[in-house]
Protein backbone atom coordinates (compact mmCIF):
# COMPACT_ATOMS: atom_id res chain seq x y z
CA UNK A 1 0.00 0.00 0.00
CA UNK A 2 1.32 3.46 -0.81
CA UNK A 3 2.12 5.41 2.33
CA UNK A 4 2.23 8.85 0.82
CA UNK A 5 0.23 9.84 -2.20
CA UNK A 6 1.19 12.59 -4.61
CA UNK A 7 -1.53 15.06 -5.50
CA UNK A 8 -3.89 14.14 -8.29
CA UNK A 9 -2.27 16.38 -10.89
CA UNK A 10 1.25 15.21 -10.13
CA UNK A 11 0.14 11.63 -10.19
CA UNK A 12 -1.74 11.74 -13.48
CA UNK A 13 0.65 9.17 -14.91
CA UNK A 14 -0.13 6.82 -12.01
CA UNK A 15 -3.74 6.47 -13.12
CA UNK A 16 -4.71 3.34 -14.91
CA UNK A 17 -6.33 4.02 -18.28
CA UNK A 18 -10.01 3.15 -18.12
CA UNK A 19 -11.03 4.73 -21.43
CA UNK A 20 -11.98 1.26 -22.72
CA UNK A 21 -14.62 1.06 -20.00
CA UNK A 22 -16.27 4.37 -20.98
CA UNK A 23 -19.15 3.70 -23.34
CA UNK A 24 -20.76 7.08 -23.65
CA UNK A 25 -21.52 10.37 -22.02
CA UNK A 26 -24.54 11.69 -20.13
CA UNK A 27 -25.47 15.36 -20.11
CA UNK A 28 -26.03 16.76 -16.68
CA UNK A 29 -26.59 20.26 -15.28
CA UNK A 30 -22.95 20.12 -14.12
CA UNK A 31 -21.64 19.11 -17.56
CA UNK A 32 -21.08 15.84 -19.39
CA UNK A 33 -20.54 12.73 -17.27
CA UNK A 34 -18.70 9.65 -18.54
CA UNK A 35 -20.80 6.53 -18.68
CA UNK A 36 -19.08 3.31 -17.68
CA UNK A 37 -19.66 -0.21 -18.93
CA UNK A 38 -20.96 -2.89 -16.58
CA UNK A 39 -18.97 -5.64 -18.23
CA UNK A 40 -15.26 -6.30 -17.94
CA UNK A 41 -12.82 -6.34 -20.85
CA UNK A 42 -9.78 -8.61 -21.11
CA UNK A 43 -7.43 -5.96 -19.69
CA UNK A 44 -9.66 -5.57 -16.60
CA UNK A 45 -9.23 -9.26 -15.82
CA UNK A 46 -5.48 -8.87 -16.39
CA UNK A 47 -5.45 -5.95 -13.91
CA UNK A 48 -7.13 -8.15 -11.33
CA UNK A 49 -4.43 -10.81 -11.73
CA UNK A 50 -1.65 -8.23 -11.64
CA UNK A 51 -2.95 -6.71 -8.45
CA UNK A 52 -3.49 -10.06 -6.78
CA UNK A 53 0.09 -11.03 -7.55
CA UNK A 54 1.34 -7.66 -6.40
CA UNK A 55 2.54 -6.48 -9.82
CA UNK A 56 2.38 -2.67 -10.02
CA UNK A 57 -0.11 -2.97 -7.21
CA UNK A 58 0.27 0.69 -6.28
CA UNK A 59 -0.61 1.89 -9.79
CA UNK A 60 -4.25 0.92 -9.86
CA UNK A 61 -5.86 4.24 -9.09
CA UNK A 62 -8.61 5.47 -11.36
CA UNK A 63 -9.55 9.10 -12.02
CA UNK A 64 -11.85 10.44 -9.31
CA UNK A 65 -15.15 12.23 -9.91
CA UNK A 66 -18.65 11.36 -11.03
CA UNK A 67 -19.52 8.52 -13.39
CA UNK A 68 -22.84 7.37 -14.82
CA UNK A 69 -24.21 3.84 -15.10
CA UNK A 70 -27.05 3.33 -17.59
CA UNK A 71 -29.14 6.46 -18.08
CA UNK A 72 -29.35 8.15 -14.72
CA UNK A 73 -31.37 11.27 -14.01
CA UNK A 74 -31.79 13.74 -11.18
CA UNK A 75 -33.57 11.23 -8.95
CA UNK A 76 -31.16 8.34 -9.51
CA UNK A 77 -29.21 6.94 -6.53
CA UNK A 78 -25.61 7.98 -5.90
CA UNK A 79 -23.08 5.35 -4.86
CA UNK A 80 -19.77 6.43 -3.34
CA UNK A 81 -16.67 4.31 -3.82
CA UNK A 82 -12.86 4.20 -3.65
CA UNK A 83 -10.58 4.95 -6.61
CA UNK A 84 -8.96 1.51 -6.62
CA UNK A 85 -9.36 -0.18 -10.00
CA UNK A 86 -10.37 -3.57 -8.57
CA UNK A 87 -12.97 -1.98 -6.31
CA UNK A 88 -14.41 0.01 -9.21
CA UNK A 89 -14.57 -3.12 -11.41
CA UNK A 90 -16.18 -5.22 -8.70
CA UNK A 91 -18.80 -2.52 -8.25
CA UNK A 92 -19.69 -1.77 -11.87
CA UNK A 93 -20.20 -5.40 -12.93
CA UNK A 94 -22.97 -5.70 -10.35
CA UNK A 95 -24.89 -2.72 -11.75
CA UNK A 96 -26.17 -4.17 -15.04
CA UNK A 97 -29.42 -2.61 -16.24
CA UNK A 98 -29.38 -0.06 -13.42
CA UNK A 99 -29.45 3.72 -13.74
CA UNK A 100 -27.35 5.48 -11.16
CA UNK A 101 -24.39 7.71 -10.40
CA UNK A 102 -21.07 6.68 -8.92
CA UNK A 103 -18.99 9.21 -7.00
CA UNK A 104 -15.38 8.02 -6.98
CA UNK A 105 -13.37 9.67 -4.23
CA UNK A 106 -9.60 9.83 -3.84
CA UNK A 107 -8.44 6.99 -1.59
CA UNK A 108 -4.93 6.92 -3.14
CA UNK A 109 -5.77 3.75 -5.04
CA UNK A 110 -6.64 1.76 -1.93
CA UNK A 111 -9.80 -0.34 -1.48
CA UNK A 112 -12.77 0.78 0.63
CA UNK A 113 -12.10 -1.01 3.92
CA UNK A 114 -8.35 -0.41 4.04
CA UNK A 115 -8.66 3.24 3.04
CA UNK A 116 -11.41 3.76 5.64
CA UNK A 117 -9.11 2.20 8.23
CA UNK A 118 -6.30 4.50 7.17
CA UNK A 119 -8.60 7.53 7.17
CA UNK A 120 -8.38 8.42 3.46
CA UNK A 121 -11.96 7.28 2.81
CA UNK A 122 -13.34 10.01 5.03
CA UNK A 123 -16.09 12.59 5.36
CA UNK A 124 -13.93 15.53 4.29
CA UNK A 125 -12.88 13.83 1.04
CA UNK A 126 -16.52 12.98 0.26
CA UNK A 127 -17.52 16.59 0.95
CA UNK A 128 -14.68 17.72 -1.35
CA UNK A 129 -15.91 15.53 -4.18
CA UNK A 130 -19.55 16.59 -3.70
CA UNK A 131 -18.40 20.18 -4.25
CA UNK A 132 -15.90 19.50 -7.06
CA UNK A 133 -18.40 17.51 -9.12
CA UNK A 134 -21.37 19.79 -8.52
CA UNK A 135 -23.34 16.79 -7.30
CA UNK A 136 -26.02 19.03 -5.80
CA UNK A 137 -26.88 20.19 -9.36
CA UNK A 138 -26.74 16.72 -10.87
CA UNK A 139 -29.24 15.16 -8.48
CA UNK A 140 -32.31 16.66 -6.87
CA UNK A 141 -32.34 14.32 -3.85
CA UNK A 142 -29.84 14.55 -0.98
CA UNK A 143 -28.81 10.97 -0.27
CA UNK A 144 -25.55 9.10 -0.70
CA UNK A 145 -25.15 5.34 -0.53
CA UNK A 146 -21.81 4.42 1.03
CA UNK A 147 -20.38 0.93 1.25
CA UNK A 148 -20.80 -0.31 4.82
CA UNK A 149 -17.07 -0.99 5.08
CA UNK A 150 -16.36 2.74 4.59
CA UNK A 151 -17.84 3.36 8.05
CA UNK A 152 -14.56 3.04 10.01
CA UNK A 153 -13.39 6.18 8.17
CA UNK A 154 -16.57 8.20 7.73
CA UNK A 155 -18.59 9.99 10.39
CA UNK A 156 -21.89 9.94 8.48
CA UNK A 157 -23.61 12.69 10.46
CA UNK A 158 -20.86 15.21 9.65
CA UNK A 159 -21.60 14.96 5.90
CA UNK A 160 -25.23 15.98 6.30
CA UNK A 161 -24.16 18.93 8.43
CA UNK A 162 -21.44 20.14 6.06
CA UNK A 163 -22.82 19.29 2.62
CA UNK A 164 -26.51 18.57 3.12
CA UNK A 165 -26.29 14.97 1.95
CA UNK A 166 -27.61 12.20 4.17
CA UNK A 167 -25.50 9.07 4.26
CA UNK A 168 -27.09 5.64 4.01
CA UNK A 169 -24.81 2.66 4.53
CA UNK A 170 -25.32 0.10 1.82
CA UNK A 171 -24.37 -3.56 1.95
CA UNK A 172 -20.80 -4.86 2.36
CA UNK A 173 -20.74 -6.63 -1.00
CA UNK A 174 -21.37 -4.89 -4.29
CA UNK A 175 -23.44 -7.84 -5.49
CA UNK A 176 -26.10 -7.02 -2.87
CA UNK A 177 -26.59 -3.45 -4.12
CA UNK A 178 -29.47 -4.21 -6.52
CA UNK A 179 -31.37 -6.00 -3.71
CA UNK A 180 -30.52 -3.21 -1.28
CA UNK A 181 -31.96 -0.57 -3.61
CA UNK A 182 -34.98 -2.71 -4.51
CA UNK A 183 -35.71 -3.16 -0.77
CA UNK A 184 -35.92 0.59 -0.25
CA UNK A 185 -32.34 1.03 0.99
CA UNK A 186 -32.56 -1.76 3.49
CA UNK A 187 -29.75 -4.28 3.99
CA UNK A 188 -30.50 -7.63 5.57
CA UNK A 189 -28.31 -8.79 8.51
CA UNK A 190 -26.54 -11.21 6.15
CA UNK A 191 -25.58 -8.33 3.86
CA UNK A 192 -24.14 -6.50 6.88
CA UNK A 193 -21.98 -9.34 8.10
CA UNK A 194 -18.44 -9.60 6.78
CA UNK A 195 -17.34 -13.08 5.73
CA UNK A 196 -13.98 -14.78 5.35
CA UNK A 197 -14.79 -17.81 3.27
CA UNK A 198 -12.42 -20.08 1.39
CA UNK A 199 -12.39 -18.01 -1.81
CA UNK A 200 -11.79 -14.81 0.16
CA UNK A 201 -8.85 -16.43 1.93
CA UNK A 202 -7.36 -17.97 -1.21
CA UNK A 203 -7.17 -14.66 -3.10
CA UNK A 204 -4.98 -13.27 -0.31
CA UNK A 205 -2.41 -16.05 -0.46
CA UNK A 206 -0.37 -14.93 -3.51
CA UNK A 207 0.62 -11.65 -1.85
CA UNK A 208 1.36 -13.43 1.44
CA UNK A 209 3.50 -15.91 -0.45
CA UNK A 210 5.38 -13.24 -2.40
CA UNK A 211 6.12 -11.22 0.74
CA UNK A 212 7.48 -14.23 2.62
CA UNK A 213 9.41 -15.66 -0.33
CA UNK A 214 11.80 -12.73 0.12
CA UNK A 215 13.11 -14.73 3.10
CA UNK A 216 14.29 -17.61 0.90
CA UNK A 217 17.74 -16.14 0.05
CA UNK A 218 18.30 -15.42 3.75
CA UNK A 219 17.46 -19.04 4.63
CA UNK A 220 19.79 -20.43 1.95
CA UNK A 221 22.64 -18.13 3.03
CA UNK A 222 22.05 -19.10 6.67
CA UNK A 223 22.42 -22.80 5.90
CA UNK A 224 25.43 -22.13 3.68
CA UNK A 225 27.15 -20.29 6.55
CA UNK A 226 26.28 -22.93 9.15
CA UNK A 227 27.52 -25.66 6.85
CA UNK A 228 30.87 -23.84 6.56
CA UNK A 229 31.53 -24.91 10.14
CA UNK A 230 33.53 -28.10 10.23
CA UNK A 231 32.55 -28.74 6.61
CA UNK A 232 34.82 -31.71 5.98
CA UNK A 233 36.34 -30.29 2.81
CA UNK A 234 33.25 -30.12 0.58
CA UNK A 235 33.59 -28.17 -2.67
CA UNK A 236 31.68 -24.92 -3.20
CA UNK A 237 29.17 -26.53 -5.55
CA UNK A 238 28.56 -29.36 -3.10
CA UNK A 239 28.09 -26.82 -0.29
CA UNK A 240 25.56 -24.86 -2.35
CA UNK A 241 23.70 -28.05 -3.14
CA UNK A 242 23.52 -29.04 0.53
CA UNK A 243 22.40 -25.52 1.53
CA UNK A 244 19.70 -25.68 -1.14
CA UNK A 245 18.35 -29.02 0.05
CA UNK A 246 18.61 -27.94 3.70
CA UNK A 247 16.48 -24.88 2.85
CA UNK A 248 13.80 -26.87 1.05
CA UNK A 249 11.83 -27.83 4.18
CA UNK A 250 11.76 -24.13 5.11
CA UNK A 251 10.54 -23.13 1.67
CA UNK A 252 7.75 -25.68 2.10
CA UNK A 253 7.18 -24.16 5.55
CA UNK A 254 6.53 -20.82 3.80
CA UNK A 255 3.91 -22.56 1.66
CA UNK A 256 2.36 -24.05 4.81
CA UNK A 257 2.32 -20.75 6.71
CA UNK A 258 1.19 -18.55 3.84
CA UNK A 259 -1.15 -20.85 1.91
CA UNK A 260 -2.12 -24.00 3.81
CA UNK A 261 -2.83 -22.31 7.16
CA UNK A 262 -4.97 -19.52 5.60
CA UNK A 263 -6.83 -22.04 3.44
CA UNK A 264 -7.51 -24.43 6.34
CA UNK A 265 -7.95 -21.64 8.91
CA UNK A 266 -11.35 -22.61 10.38
CA UNK A 267 -10.40 -26.30 10.50
CA UNK A 268 -7.25 -25.78 12.56
CA UNK A 269 -7.93 -25.74 16.31
CA UNK A 270 -7.18 -22.69 18.53
CA UNK A 271 -8.26 -19.08 18.17
CA UNK A 272 -4.70 -17.81 18.32
CA UNK A 273 -2.99 -17.65 14.94
CA UNK A 274 0.43 -18.27 16.49
CA UNK A 275 -0.96 -21.47 18.02
CA UNK A 276 -2.56 -22.54 14.73
CA UNK A 277 0.79 -22.00 13.02
CA UNK A 278 2.71 -23.80 15.78
CA UNK A 279 0.46 -26.85 15.39
CA UNK A 280 0.98 -26.87 11.62
CA UNK A 281 4.72 -26.41 12.25
CA UNK A 282 4.88 -29.37 14.66
CA UNK A 283 3.10 -31.60 12.15
CA UNK A 284 5.46 -30.46 9.40
CA UNK A 285 8.45 -31.09 11.73
CA UNK A 286 7.31 -34.69 12.24
CA UNK A 287 7.03 -35.17 8.48
CA UNK A 288 10.48 -33.61 8.00
CA UNK A 289 11.82 -35.98 10.67
CA UNK A 290 10.51 -38.93 8.65
CA UNK A 291 11.88 -37.49 5.40
CA UNK A 292 15.19 -36.26 6.90
CA UNK A 293 17.30 -37.67 4.06
CA UNK A 294 15.40 -35.73 1.40
CA UNK A 295 16.62 -32.45 2.92
CA UNK A 296 20.14 -33.82 3.53
CA UNK A 297 19.80 -33.46 7.29
CA UNK A 298 21.95 -35.50 9.62
CA UNK A 299 19.79 -37.86 11.65
CA UNK A 300 21.37 -36.88 14.96
CA UNK A 301 18.88 -35.82 17.64
CA UNK A 302 20.46 -32.36 17.96
CA UNK A 303 19.90 -31.59 14.29
CA UNK A 304 16.37 -33.00 14.23
CA UNK A 305 15.42 -31.10 17.38
CA UNK A 306 16.98 -27.97 15.90
CA UNK A 307 14.89 -28.20 12.71
CA UNK A 308 11.73 -28.99 14.70
CA UNK A 309 12.19 -25.87 16.83
CA UNK A 310 13.05 -23.67 13.85
CA UNK A 311 10.24 -24.95 11.61
CA UNK A 312 7.61 -24.70 14.34
CA UNK A 313 8.67 -21.17 15.27
CA UNK A 314 8.79 -20.19 11.59
CA UNK A 315 5.32 -21.46 10.64
CA UNK A 316 3.92 -19.98 13.87
CA UNK A 317 5.42 -16.60 12.94
CA UNK A 318 4.04 -16.74 9.37
CA UNK A 319 0.58 -17.65 10.66
CA UNK A 320 0.67 -14.82 13.19
CA UNK A 321 1.55 -12.50 10.34
CA UNK A 322 -1.69 -13.45 8.59
CA UNK A 323 -3.73 -11.73 11.33
CA UNK A 324 -3.00 -8.53 9.37
CA UNK A 325 -5.02 -9.80 6.42
CA UNK A 326 -8.12 -11.31 7.98
CA UNK A 327 -11.57 -9.77 8.26
CA UNK A 328 -12.14 -10.59 11.92
CA UNK A 329 -9.00 -10.11 14.02
CA UNK A 330 -8.78 -7.13 16.37
CA UNK A 331 -5.72 -5.03 17.03
CA UNK A 332 -5.89 -5.76 20.75
CA UNK A 333 -6.03 -9.50 20.09
CA UNK A 334 -3.13 -9.42 17.64
CA UNK A 335 -1.13 -7.30 20.05
CA UNK A 336 -1.82 -9.73 22.88
CA UNK A 337 -0.75 -12.82 20.99
CA UNK A 338 2.22 -11.08 19.38
CA UNK A 339 3.56 -10.10 22.81
CA UNK A 340 3.11 -13.68 24.01
CA UNK A 341 4.20 -15.61 20.93
CA UNK A 342 7.09 -13.66 19.42
CA UNK A 343 9.41 -14.06 22.45
CA UNK A 344 8.71 -17.82 22.41
CA UNK A 345 9.28 -18.00 18.65
CA UNK A 346 12.53 -16.07 19.09
CA UNK A 347 13.84 -18.26 21.91
CA UNK A 348 12.90 -21.46 20.06
CA UNK A 349 14.70 -20.16 16.96
CA UNK A 350 17.83 -19.21 18.88
CA UNK A 351 17.97 -22.62 20.59
CA UNK A 352 17.40 -24.23 17.18
CA UNK A 353 20.24 -22.26 15.60
CA UNK A 354 22.57 -23.05 18.52
CA UNK A 355 21.76 -26.75 18.18
CA UNK A 356 22.47 -26.60 14.43
CA UNK A 357 25.91 -25.19 15.17
CA UNK A 358 26.57 -27.68 18.00
CA UNK A 359 25.38 -30.45 15.69
CA UNK A 360 28.13 -29.59 13.21
CA UNK A 361 30.66 -30.82 15.79
CA UNK A 362 28.65 -33.70 17.21
CA UNK A 363 28.24 -35.09 13.71
CA UNK A 364 31.91 -35.83 13.27
Amino acid at each position, binding site marked *: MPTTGPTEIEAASCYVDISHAINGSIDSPAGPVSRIATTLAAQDILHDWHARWSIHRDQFRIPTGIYAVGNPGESSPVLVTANYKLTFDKLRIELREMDLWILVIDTKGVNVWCSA*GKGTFCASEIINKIRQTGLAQIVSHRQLILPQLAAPG*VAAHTISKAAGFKVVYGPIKARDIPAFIANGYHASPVMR*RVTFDLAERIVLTPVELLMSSKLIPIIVIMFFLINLINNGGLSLSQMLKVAGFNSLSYIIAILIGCVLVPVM*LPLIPFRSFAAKGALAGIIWSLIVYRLGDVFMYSSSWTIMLAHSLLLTAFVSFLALNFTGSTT*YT*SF*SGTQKETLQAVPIQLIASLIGLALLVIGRFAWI
Partner: protein
Amino acid sequence: MHMQYLQGVANLYFDEEKCIGCGICIDVCPHEVFELVNKGKVIIRDKDSCMECGACALNCPVAAVEVKPGVG
Protein backbone atom coordinates in the same frame (compact mmCIF):
# COMPACT_ATOMS: atom_id res chain seq x y z
CA MET B 1 -18.44 -20.80 9.10
CA HIS B 2 -18.27 -18.11 11.75
CA MET B 3 -14.72 -17.63 12.99
CA GLN B 4 -13.93 -16.09 16.33
CA TYR B 5 -10.72 -14.54 17.53
CA LEU B 6 -9.28 -14.27 21.05
CA GLN B 7 -11.84 -13.75 23.80
CA GLY B 8 -11.99 -10.94 26.32
CA VAL B 9 -9.59 -8.58 24.55
CA ALA B 10 -11.80 -6.16 22.61
CA ASN B 11 -11.62 -2.58 23.89
CA LEU B 12 -15.19 -1.64 23.18
CA TYR B 13 -17.08 0.57 25.62
CA PHE B 14 -20.78 1.40 25.50
CA ASP B 15 -22.69 3.97 27.52
CA GLU B 16 -26.34 2.95 27.68
CA GLU B 17 -27.28 6.28 29.27
CA LYS B 18 -26.21 8.19 26.15
CA CYS B 19 -27.72 5.74 23.61
CA ILE B 20 -30.67 7.13 21.66
CA GLY B 21 -31.39 3.85 19.88
CA CYS B 22 -30.80 5.17 16.36
CA GLY B 23 -29.23 1.86 15.35
CA ILE B 24 -26.42 3.25 13.19
CA CYS B 25 -23.95 1.05 15.12
CA ILE B 26 -25.94 -2.01 14.05
CA ASP B 27 -25.82 -0.86 10.42
CA VAL B 28 -22.07 -0.27 10.36
CA CYS B 29 -20.87 -3.21 12.46
CA PRO B 30 -19.49 -6.00 10.25
CA HIS B 31 -19.75 -8.59 13.05
CA GLU B 32 -23.23 -8.13 14.53
CA VAL B 33 -21.82 -7.01 17.87
CA PHE B 34 -24.85 -4.83 18.68
CA GLU B 35 -28.54 -5.54 18.96
CA LEU B 36 -31.51 -3.21 19.34
CA VAL B 37 -33.73 -4.26 22.22
CA ASN B 38 -37.36 -3.28 22.65
CA LYS B 39 -36.52 -0.58 25.18
CA GLY B 40 -35.34 1.47 22.21
CA LYS B 41 -31.75 1.05 23.31
CA VAL B 42 -28.85 -0.89 21.92
CA ILE B 43 -27.03 -3.62 23.83
CA ILE B 44 -23.69 -5.30 23.22
CA ARG B 45 -24.69 -8.76 22.09
CA ASP B 46 -21.34 -10.29 21.18
CA LYS B 47 -18.34 -8.31 22.37
CA ASP B 48 -15.84 -11.06 21.52
CA SER B 49 -16.65 -10.70 17.83
CA CYS B 50 -15.57 -7.04 17.87
CA MET B 51 -12.55 -6.43 15.64
CA GLU B 52 -12.16 -2.83 16.82
CA CYS B 53 -12.68 -1.32 13.36
CA GLY B 54 -14.10 1.75 15.06
CA ALA B 55 -17.04 2.23 12.68
CA CYS B 56 -19.61 2.33 15.51
CA ALA B 57 -17.68 4.86 17.58
CA LEU B 58 -17.11 7.19 14.63
CA ASN B 59 -20.72 7.05 13.44
CA CYS B 60 -22.51 7.24 16.79
CA PRO B 61 -24.07 10.71 16.80
CA VAL B 62 -24.08 10.92 20.61
CA ALA B 63 -20.67 9.34 21.32
CA ALA B 64 -22.21 6.47 23.25
CA VAL B 65 -19.69 3.98 21.85
CA GLU B 66 -15.96 4.08 22.26
CA VAL B 67 -13.33 1.82 20.71
CA LYS B 68 -9.73 2.03 21.85
CA PRO B 69 -7.67 -0.54 19.95
CA GLY B 70 -4.49 -1.63 21.66
CA VAL B 71 -5.29 -0.27 25.10
CA GLY B 72 -4.88 -2.53 28.13
